[in-house]
């Protein structure tokens, strides 16, 4: 793209500050064509161009400064904006209309202050260097990282939103973290007493020390740690570094020294049009004070930037009228939400409260004196209630008959407000101020794709918190206009997985190319349809997944027949059917793990997982494992994983059947079976259920007379007890029923749908499933059994197959033109084994060993 050349620029606009709000203002000016009129100069005090301060903590999680940047490096130059980074503005000369900077003087016709805020550090004697750190800029974070190198413990002063963020950052640097708060509760601004104590319980459970009602009086040298903080109550706490996060103050020094009107509590005073007491100077974001308040969130800052830009180009704009300070976030992994009048400060306000002390969950609903509207809410532990409550509060929607239902736990999750109940004025995306009406307009204008909608309206592209609601409103509006909501697998197949499965079966399709040529669009596919079709082909025909035509379809885990971990290395899980293993094989596993220095852990499925192998090591490792009698465990596949068993009647005094024998028989039968999602089995030898079979997709529990069969259980994120399906079965009938059940699941489930969700979506429920599987109501039983038998007969260990074929092995090279391993993979020792290095430990690398 060429830069836009504009011959006449009649005015000079100077923006001081290149933070999130200042940058948003520039973006808005560019978008509105303001560069045709203004010569724009932007001054940023920091070295880096504008970056995402909201996600600052990810800097310690491995993201670098560049990936946090809010725009491409050349955006400003491309549009002719002059960006002066690392240049501090020292003074505003209102007489001559110039700003005086460390680099000289710059004249302006109009000036925008977007200087943000600075962290407040209370004057405490002894606070200096590593005992006076703050958490605001990338440079601050570098200082914290440097201070943390030799530290064991870190303390954050301030238990508000930013303080807890900072505590998380210290934790991610490997420090023991503590929070010291002056108020008697955490997040005193957003939470009430009960909410604060629920949050405290959660955070303490994470190993973060919480010290409330404490004021630090002085910092002196410590005995066990570098510093000792002496508190007002005579107590003390020792630490190696101290981070202050005791609130922010508007950065109004420039305005103050230039004689602009400044609010009593700080901030350059603005009117509704963002104008300061000097009509040529505007202020937006955290440095501005409107009606006595400053607004320390991104959404109001963006709203100010957007409206000021519109005003500067003479477009219609909204005067500032305050901002909703409702917020939801995850602090140290704990959901926290605060809406409107969280403290019920409004006269006559009444509250409903829900407290669950066992999980540390708390919810408070504040309603108006007339009992008709939601005016506030507090959430700790579960933010799934937030969207609905916010809509009630923002749009003054009439309360349901029993308002407590809005915060009470429901058996099927949080209550949701139907998309149709929202008025057109309801704000869907508060970051970009997109209303339901705007979504409707886009749909009326012909938008039928969620991605296009986001690109067009920008909804859902800020913090992303509204994504679920946006999708719901969008789909509802489409249906309301008679547009069929697209249930296509992806842009390449206008079919559901079930339909594709039927096509593959009926037409005998054996390759992706054949399927996309006959029934799809394009020629390449994508990462959604390729693995889905790969799975269907495997379920139907069970050809080795490493065949050249099949290998590009597989997810990386299937491609390399191992599980990719966060640093790009793999873990290896050989099959240990039923959890039964001979001492010799156990030794063989140990020998391989030791030889390749693999981190070794016993899995929940009674197997052994070996972590940290590089791509080029996998064939050697598997060569040795196969030599020792192992075969692949399919831990990487959407396929049968394990059949967990208890020791059964062979050894146990209570056992009534040989559960280990049955588990091995089942695992050997269904190993390698590809399905819409992973499948787990359990077999227990008596009703005591030590194998936890009722939490598995297929559970088998021994009885005096045979076996009881349970189906569609699940552990994981949404646990579900398996349902009793048939009782007192003999071995042959048990296997026949499982054959039919699994093949019916494979035939009818959606992609990546576990048996539990599939079973719940079956019309007719469990009774219908029994009719199909037990009574053969569809006349399918023989076919399903035959299909299963084909898969069983074609079983072959994928690793043994691949090792015989040099062509297949050629993919297992870290570099195709070099013998070396990946030089960026580093490990450190922990509890006698190696593990991946954390981003914060990169300074440790010189003393760690690399894999050859």
């Amino acid at each position, binding site marked *: 793209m060429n830069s836009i050349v504009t011959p006449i620029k009649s005015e000079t606009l100077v923006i001081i500050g290149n933070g999130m709000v200042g940058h948003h203002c520039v973006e808005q000016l560019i978008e509105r064509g303001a560069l045709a009129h203004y010569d724009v100069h932007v001054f940023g005090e920091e070295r880096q161009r504008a970056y995402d301060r909201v996600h600052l903590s990810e800097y310690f999680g491995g993201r670098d400064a560049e990936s946090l940047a809010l725009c491409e490096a050349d955006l400003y130059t491309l549009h002719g904006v002059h960006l002066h980074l690392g240049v501090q503005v020292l003074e505003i000369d209102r007489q001559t209309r110039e700003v005086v900077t460390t680099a000289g003087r710059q004249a302006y016709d109009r000036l925008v202050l977007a200087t943000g805020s600075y962290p407040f550090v209370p004057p405490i004697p002894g606070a200096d260097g590593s005992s006076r750190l703050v958490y605001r800029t990338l440079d601050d974070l570098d200082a914290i990282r440097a201070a943390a190198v030799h530290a064991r413990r870190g303390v954050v002063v301030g238990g508000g939103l930013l303080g807890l963020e900072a505590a998380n950052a210290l934790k991610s640097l490997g420090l023991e973290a503590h929070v010291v708060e002056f108020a008697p509760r955490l997040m005193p601004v957003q939470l009430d007493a009960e909410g604060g104590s629920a949050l405290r319980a959660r955070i303490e459970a994470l190993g973060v020390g919480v010290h409330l009602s404490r004021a630090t009086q002085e910092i002196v040298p410590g005995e066990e740690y570098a510093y000792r903080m002496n508190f007002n109550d005579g107590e003390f706490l020792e630490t190696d570094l101290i981070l202050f996060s005791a609130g922010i103050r508007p950065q109004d020094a420039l305005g103050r020294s230039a004689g602009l009107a400044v609010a009593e509590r700080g901030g350059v005073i603005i009117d509704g049009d963002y104008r300061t007491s000097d009509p040529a100077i505007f202020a937006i974001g955290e440095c501005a004070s409107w009606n006595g308040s400053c607004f320390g969130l991104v959404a109001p800052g963006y709203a100010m930037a957007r409206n000021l830009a519109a005003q500067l180009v003479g477009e219609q704009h909204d005067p500032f009228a305050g901002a909703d300070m409702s917020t939801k976030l995850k602090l140290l992994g704990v959901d926290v939400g605060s809406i409107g009048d969280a403290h019920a400060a409004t006269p006559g306000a009444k509250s409903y409260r829900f407290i669950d002390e066992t999980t540390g969950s708390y919810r408070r609903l504040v309603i108006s004196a007339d009992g008709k509207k939601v005016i506030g809410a507090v959430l700790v532990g579960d933010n799934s209630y937030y969207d609905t409550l916010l809509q009630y509060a923002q749009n003054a929607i009439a309360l349901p008959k029993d308002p407590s239902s809005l915060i009470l736990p429901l058996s099927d999750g949080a209550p949701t407000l139907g998309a149709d109940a929202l008025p057109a004025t309801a704000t869907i995306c508060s970051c970009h101020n997109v209303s339901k009406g705007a979504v409707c307009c886009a749909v009326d204008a012909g938008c039928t794709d969620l991605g296009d909608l986001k690109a067009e309206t920008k909804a859902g592209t800020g913090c992303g918190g509204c994504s679920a609601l946006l999708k719901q409103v969008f789909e509802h509006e489409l249906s309301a206009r008679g547009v069929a909501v697209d249930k296509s697998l992806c842009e390449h197949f206008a079919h559901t997985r079930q339909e594709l499965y039927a096509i593959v079966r009926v037409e005998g399709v054996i390759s992706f190319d054949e399927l996309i040529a006959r029934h799809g669009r394009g020629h390449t596919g994508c990462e959604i349809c390729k693995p889905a079709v790969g799975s269907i082909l495997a379920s139907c025909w069970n050809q080795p997944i490493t065949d050249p035509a099949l290998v590009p379809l597989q997810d990386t885990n299937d491609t390399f027949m191992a599980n990719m971990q966060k640093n790009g290395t793999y873990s290896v899980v050989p099959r240990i059917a039923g959890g039964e293993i001979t001492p010799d094989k156990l030794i063989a596993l140990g020998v391989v793990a030791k030889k390749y220095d693999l981190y070794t852990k016993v899995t929940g499925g009674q197997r052994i997982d070996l972590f940290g192998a590089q791509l080029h090591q996998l064939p050697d490792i598997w060569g040795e494992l196969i030599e020792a009698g192992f075969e692949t465990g399919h831990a990487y596949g959407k396929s049968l994983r394990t059949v967990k068993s208890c020791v059964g009647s062979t050894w146990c005094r209570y056992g009534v059947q040989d559960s280990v024998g049955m588990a091995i028989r089942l695992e050997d039968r269904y190993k390698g079976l590809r399905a819409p999602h992973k499948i787990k089995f359990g077999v227990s030898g008596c009703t005591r259920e030590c194998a936890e079979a009722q939490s598995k997709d297929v559970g088998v529990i021994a009885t005096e007379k045979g076996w009881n069969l349970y189906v569609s259980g699940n552990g994981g994120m949404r646990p579900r007890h398996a349902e009793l399906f048939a009782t007192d079965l003999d071995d042959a009938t048990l296997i026949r029923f499982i054959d039919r059940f699994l093949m019916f699941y494979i035939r009818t489930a959606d992609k990546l749908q576990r048996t539990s969700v599939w079973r719940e979506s079956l019309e007719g429920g469990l009774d219908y499933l029994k009719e199909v599987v037990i009574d053969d109501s569809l006349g399918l039983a023989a076919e399903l059994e035959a299909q299963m038998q084909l898969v069983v007969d074609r079983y072959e260990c994928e690793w043994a197959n691949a090792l015989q074929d040099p062509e297949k092995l*050629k993919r297992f090279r870290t570099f195709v033109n070099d013998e070396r391993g990946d030089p960026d993979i580093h490990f450190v020792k922990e509890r006698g084994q190696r593990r991946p290095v954390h981003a914060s430990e990169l300074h440790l690398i010189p003393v760690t060993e690399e894999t050859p």
Partner: protein
Amino acid sequence: MSQPNALSAPPLSSSRNSNAWSRLCSRQDLVANSGVVAWLDGAQVALFHLPHTPDGEQLFAVENRDPKSGANVVGRGIVGQLKGDLVIASPLYKQHYRLKDGSCVEYPEQRLRVWPVRLNGDVVEIGPLG
């Protein structure tokens, strides 16, 4: 930086300085419709070979490091097509990068470096960073 790097067996009379191209690996090292990774003087280059597309045979060379995870895994992603663009989906967090210029579909601030690359007979040749 954003120069497209899709080339299919260009004529010998390339307008570029032929000295700028160097041998990276051989055609036999490539895996059809999928990725492999080559070492280039300290850089890791993910190569994606699509032998049959409507535009003919295509070869792409992008940076192997996934900016979101910091791991060198891009070469092990799935090749696909999104709204007409050929893309690679990162295997860890599944974000997409356009093969032609390395731009990220979901996170505009992320970008993979791309190299000009071509097949010269059985030799894969790589050019200087665009």
